[in-house]
């Protein structure tokens, strides 16, 4: 069974540009989570999607947005890129709702903003 897949693996952008990151959850998983991990820091929660709806978002500015498609895959968009947006962006999916379902993470997309 395929795990969570993310693309692209690496992405280099310049300040002010937009970045789009993609995530495909494990088949059957309806929840998708996005996290940001800057160098040397812990994972910061960005967004949670379930059944196509945004269920929660972390403490990030509105230029971080996303969506979940009918097939449960998800897209994270970062507009007006800033240098501090350089980080590893991790996507996770889960099956169980209402309790602590195990999160399955992808390998991440490393975004570099120059």
């Amino acid at each position, binding site marked *: 069974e395929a795990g*969570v897949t993310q693309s692209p693996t690496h992405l280099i952008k310049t300040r002010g540009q937009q970045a789009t990151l993609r995530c495909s959850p494990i088949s059957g998983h309806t*929840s998708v*989570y996005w*996290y940001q991990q800057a160098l040397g*820091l*812990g*994972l*910061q*929660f960005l967004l*949670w999607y*379930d059944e196509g709806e945004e*269920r*929660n978002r*972390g403490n990030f500015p509105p230029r971080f947005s996303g969506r979940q498609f009918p097939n449960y895959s998800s897209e994270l968009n970062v507009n007006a890129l800033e240098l501090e947006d350089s980080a*590893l962006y*991790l*996507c*996770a999916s*889960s099956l*169980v*709702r*209402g*309790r*602590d*379902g*195990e*999160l*399955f*993470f*992808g*390998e*991440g997309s*490393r975004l570099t903003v120059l």
Partner: protein
Amino acid sequence: LAKTTQPISMDSYEGQEVNITCSHNNIATNDYITWYQQFPSQGPRFIIQGYKTKVTNEVASLFIPADRKSSTLSLPRVSLSDTAVYYCLVGAQAGSYQLTFGKGTKLSVIP
């Protein structure tokens, strides 16, 4: 959601048992305790989850005292490949992972 506190780093020699303790004083009745492992430039990987007493799987054991205000992840006979960051999370609802994983505990296994 319960806040967790764990040591920033730990060192251990190969073959030793490693115990990483996590404090979560304001854990709620419905909260579960979950541990993840993360290698550099990879996504975290689920290790173990528990609610109370002891849970054991092929990778680790999780000890939770009766008051559930702390938990201890036990890794038996660590090897160099166990060098990673270990995160303790506490939560009850899907989306409880909305909070940061924190910086976790960086375990360094020494030959």
